[in-house]
Each structure stands twice: as C-alpha cells, then as structure tokens.
C-alpha cells in the first residue's frame, strides 16, 4: 500500500522553541490514523506542515503523490482546530465559497449542499445565517466544508472537541463513512476512546518527537495487560494480603475495586491463580492497556498514581 502522506526528517522551530524534531511518518493510503499527543506536543504544527500552511525548516513532506499539499490542494479536506465561519454569511453561501475554492463546479452545487445538509441532520438550514446556528450545528457545517468536495485525504484536527455525545457519535459515523468510501483520514484528538473506536493506526508525538507509531493491534500487543482488577468478597486483611504478593508492583484501591500492577516476570494466568489463593475473590480481570493508559505512560504520567489520587488508598 503506497503512502498518502510521507514525512522524512522534518523539523520546525519557532524562535528558539523546537515544535517538531526530526519527524518521520508514513500514513498509508486508505488508512484511518489517529494523531495523539499532549497539548503543545506539535500536532497542529505537523498538520499545518502537511497541508503546506507553514513550511518545515528541514525535511521533506510528500502528500498524495510526489508533490506537496499545494499541488493537491483540491484533493485534501481540512478541518482545523481553530475553525470558524463568517458570522453574517448564509450557510449555503459559505459552503459554496469553500467548495468553489476547492474546485467543485458551480453546476449542481445547490443539490449537493442540500444532500449533505440532510446527511448531517441539518436539513433546511441552507438559507440561515451562520450566527443563527448553535455551536454544534456550526461544527457540523464546518465538517461539511471539509468533506463536501469529496477529498482523497481528510485531515481533522480535534474534530470532536465541543460536541455533545450525540453529535460526537454522528461525527464518528460520518468519519467512518468517509473511510469506507476509500478516503485516507488523519485525525488528531485528545479523546482516546474516539481514537480507539475509529482508528486503525495511531501515532503520537511528545515534545515534538514521535514516541508511538503503530496499529491498534500492535499497541495492544506492545502494551500487554499488566494490570489485574480485583473485586473481593471480604475486605478485612485484603490490602495487606495483596501487598504481600511478590509479583505485585503496585496496589491501588479504586472504589470497590483493587488494581494490581504486575511485575514483568510473571505470566498473567499465574498471577490470577496466586491472587485467588491469597484473598477471598468475587471477580478478577486482566485489563487491557487502554490507549489512554498508553498515552499517559508515554506522556510521562503514571495512571495508577492518578487513580490513587482520584479516590483510592495506596
């Protein structure tokens, strides 16, 4: 599978602050990739460089072939994090303006707009002014302006921010629909469950450097379940018994549950057997590392310490 985006040794510095350092990245054609990273990690800078809005200080970026994004502008859809609408403009006029700039012929524009508005659950708003729409409605219109010209590559920067769960779910569906139609999708997000549900592949940058680049399967394999969640029948003496287990790297109480981090030298089934022997068990489960856990671990947070802070006792 050839690459929709290929980034080689790209760096970008603002003043004396490096935003992206020596980044290599390949986004396979037709894939749906999550771009994660903490605030200020360099995600938006990377996306802007991919789009040719800002130029890298060094390195090369190829988009949809051998050229840059400037050569393929009409074939790319972009929903920036900083997104707005002309307040006084009618919805149809805004969508027409963006679509015309992206090379969509004027003929049939009205029908195209009506069809898309219907699809995103906003029938009949074409003639309304943008400032008459709710924030959620505006975000859907913004999404439309990124996809209405049917791009080959869709780049979405924090597409779910500010959406209620219902609209977030609708947007997820729309993104998956675009993927099913063969489009390559790159989305940056802070909402890990979204990335987990939608993406085939994730890459993460932290302090301008790539720290993760793998499929979700690979992430699951690399970050093996090393945590047991335990529910007990009787609490008395349980904490001491759990802490006494030789393979327990950390014991954290989270509400009615206990979380045990396992040392690397013990197999999960063995650990479960030993826990069952040590305390009166109601339920035990080996939990898979969530993308959020991976994120927090790579970004330098200890999830267990966070859980302890949130309500458990150590």
């Amino acid at each position, binding site marked *: 599978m050839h690459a929709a985006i290929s980034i080689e040794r790209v760096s970008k510095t603002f003043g004396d602050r490096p935003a992206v350092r020596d980044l290599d990245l390949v986004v396979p054609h037709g894939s749906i990739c999550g771009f994660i990273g903490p605030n200020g990690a360099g995600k938006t800078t990377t996306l802007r460089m991919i789009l*040719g809005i800002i130029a890298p200080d060094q390195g090369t970026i190829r988009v949809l072939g051998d050229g840059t994004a400037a050569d393929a502008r009409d*074939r*790319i859809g972009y929903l920036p994090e900083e997104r707005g609408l*002309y307040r006084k403009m009618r919805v149809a006029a805004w969508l027409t*303006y963006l679509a015309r*700039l992206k090379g969509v012929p004027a003929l049939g524009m009205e029908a195209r707009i009506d069809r898309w508005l219907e699809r995103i659950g906003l029938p009949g708003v074409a003639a309304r002014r943008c400032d008459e729409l709710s924030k959620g409605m505006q975000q859907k219109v913004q999404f439309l302006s990124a996809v209405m*010209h*049917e791009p080959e590559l869709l780049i979405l920067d924090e597409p779910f921010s500010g959406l209620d769960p219902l609209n977030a779910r609708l947007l997820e569906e729309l993104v998956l629909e675009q993927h099913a139609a063969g489009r390559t999708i790159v989305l940056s997000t802070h909402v890990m469950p979204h990335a987990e549900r939608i993406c085939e592949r994730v890459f993460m940058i932290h302090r301008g450097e790539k720290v993760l680049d793998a499929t979700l399967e690979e992430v699951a394999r690399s970050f093996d379940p090393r945590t047991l969640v335990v529910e007990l029948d009787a609490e008395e003496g349980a904490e001491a018994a759990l802490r006494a287990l030789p393979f327990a790297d950390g014991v954290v109480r989270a509400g009615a549950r206990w979380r045990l981090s396992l040392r690397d030298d013990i197999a999960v089934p063995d650990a479960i057997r030993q826990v069952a022997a040590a305390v009166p068990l109601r339920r035990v489960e080996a939990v898979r590392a969530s993308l959020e856990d991976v994120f927090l671990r790579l970004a330098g947070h200890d999830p267990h310490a966070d859980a302890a802070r949130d309500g458990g006792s150590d």
Partner: protein
Amino acid sequence: MAARGRPGRAATAKRIFIVARREFLATVLTRGFVVGVLLMPTIMGLVMAAVPLLVRSPPVRGEVAIIDRTGRVAVGAAERIANLDRDGESSPGARRRRQGGAPPANLRVVVLADDADVEAATAPLRQLPAPERLALVVIPADGLAPEKSPDLLCAPTLDGLLGIAVGEQVADAVIDARLAERGHDPEAMRALLQRPKISKRTVTASGDAESDELAGVVLPAAFMMLLWIATFTSGQFLLTTLVEEKSMRVMEVLLSAVSPFELLTGKIIGHALVGMVVLATYLALGTTILVGLDMSHMLDPALAALLGVYFVIAFLLVASMMAAVGSVVEDIRSAQTLLTPVMVLLALPTVLWLPISRNPSSTFAIVLTFIPPMGPFVSVLRLAAPDPVPAWQVALSLAIGVASVIVAIWAAARIFRIGVLMYGKPPTLRQMLRWVRER
C-alpha cells in the same frame, strides 16, 4: 471520488478570482456600504441635479401697469418687462434669474394714461385672493432727472425677486430714455459701457494656462480628497475583513483551500474594485455638481484617467499596509496603534494641499511627488493644479509608484504569511520588519 488535476496558473487565477469576487460582493452588498458610501453621495448628487427642476415653478402670469408722467419711458419699459423671459428657459439671462431664484414670468403690461390716478391704479393690487395686477410702476414727471426714482408698487403675492427684475427693467428703460433725450443711441452706449472680461493667464515654461482660483486650489484638493476617500475607504474595508477573519477563526479554514498569496491577492483585487466603485461614485457626483454649476469645462478626461492610475498605485500601497497589519492583529484598536505612524505620513498631503496647490512647482512639492506613499496624492494635487507638471516628473512618479507597490506587496505577503496564523499579543513594527527579512 472527485479526481481533479494538478493545479496550475489557471487554478491559481480561478481561486484568486473567487476570493476577489466574494470580497467585493461581501463589501458592496452590506447596508453600511450601500448607505454610507453609495447612497449618501448619490442622493446628494441627485438633489443637486434636481434642485433646478424642483425650484422651477410655472411662469408667473399677471399684469404690470405703468403710469409714465414723462411720456418717454413707458414704451421701453413695457417692452422690456413683457420680454423678461423672451429668450426662453435656457437663455443666460433666464438661467441667471433661475440661479438667483426668480421664477419665470409671463407678464402683460398695461400702460395707463399719463395723468391716471395712482390711488385708483393701486386698488387692483389689493384685490383678494389673487390680484390680476401684480405691480404698478409710477414714473414721476421729472423721472428722468438723475436724482429722481420711479416708484414700484407691488401686490403682496408678487415674488420678491421677480419684483426686483421688473424694477431693473424699468431702471434700464429710464436710462435709455435719458440717453435718447440727449441724442445718444442707447444700444450703442450700452455696448460702449460693457465692462470687459479680463482673461487672467499664468505664464509657464511649457505654455500658457488659464488661471482660475477655483481651478487652481479647490479642484486639486477635490481630486486629492477623492483619491483619499476611495483609497482609505476600501483599505479600511480590507483591514476590517482581515481582522474579522482572524477574530472569527476563519483564516485557517481558508488557508486550507488557498495559498496565502492567493488569499492576499484576491482580497486586494476585491477591495481595489470596491475602491473603484467609490471613486466612480464620487467622480460622477463631482461631475454632476460641475455640470450643474455650468463648470463642466473644468473636467479633464486625461486627468480623470491619471487619477485612476494613481488610485491603483495608492490603493495597492495602502492595501499592502492594511493587509500586513490586519493579518497580525485580532482587533481594530491594535491595528490602529500599528498604523498610526504610516497614517501620519499619509495625512501629510492633506495638510499641505494649500501650499502645494498654490505653488505646485516648488522644490518641496516636487520632492514629495517622488516619496511613497505620499507620491500619488501629491501627484494628483499637482496635476489638477493649472501649472502643468513636466512629463518626466509624471513618468518618474509613476515608475517609483509601481516599484514601491511591488516592494510593499512583497513585504506584506511575507508578514501576512507568518502573521495570519498568529494569535495573542500583536507583534511590534520591529518584529514585523524582521519577518520581512527572514528567509
């Protein structure tokens, strides 16, 4: 999936056109523009054009009676009064009276007996509601003596200015009678007494030009102000849209569809067209006023064409500055702070218009002609003055103007490219200059 080809110059031109079209329409179709920029001057122009029509009233019909106790004035006076509007509405005399405000007249003159009773002849003037007799002229027996004056008794309904016009005709008839009494031909005497009209000309190296205070001082200022209004109105609109786009976070969405160069160029072209609409509107208004005042001879098509050329140069200079500043700020107040030094420079020609137009060939005026961004304004000021500007100076000022436009657009594009995606504290002028120099 839409498959579209690689963009070339045609695609770039098309995107620039789409941006320019939107900028133009989004500006000229706003209520503020239509009312403030187009409607007000248009209404003013229409009113000025319509005033002569509005004040035009039907001819005053009625009777003027004359009691001429000398027996020498009545015939001449009757003829003059009856012919007040003989030459019709377009005659210079009639037009002067229109400008003076007097209505046209269609008066019948009745010459009463030399010894008619004044009291009896006055009675019809008091007739209600509208007397047929509007005025009674009484010329006393010694009315030809220089110290004597005829009486003019008017009905209350007679237009005051028309009354004065009737009085003037009677006075002229008295003078004619005096001249005839002494054996002179009144027509010949009047021709001899005609005051000559002095033709004042300014002598210059390149030839003579008619000199006129209005043409010399007021017209250049009017042309320069025209350039100012058109340039700054459209420049201000450009600045406002840029600041709005930044504050509404539309900029990045647009930059995903067009390059900064395409966006900047489209915006500048769109607002240049806005400026041309303003220029054309005010030029049309000025023309209407000059035609209305019978001064259309002062309009010079070549000057109007040069005004257009200087507008393009001045607008592009101002637009580049507005674009550079508009791209780095998020509110108009910050923009004004950054623009203040440049605005002071640009305001110089408006402050110095009087010395420049009174002495357009002074070294000071010539030097200012070549200094951007004031050059176009000073050039227009000098070109509209009666003193001809040497062709080489016009050519040099245009060349410097074009060169400075290229530099300004280049610098603005560099600032725009960096500033347009920056939010937060606006940069200083020094930082902006550094962006221009950065590779």
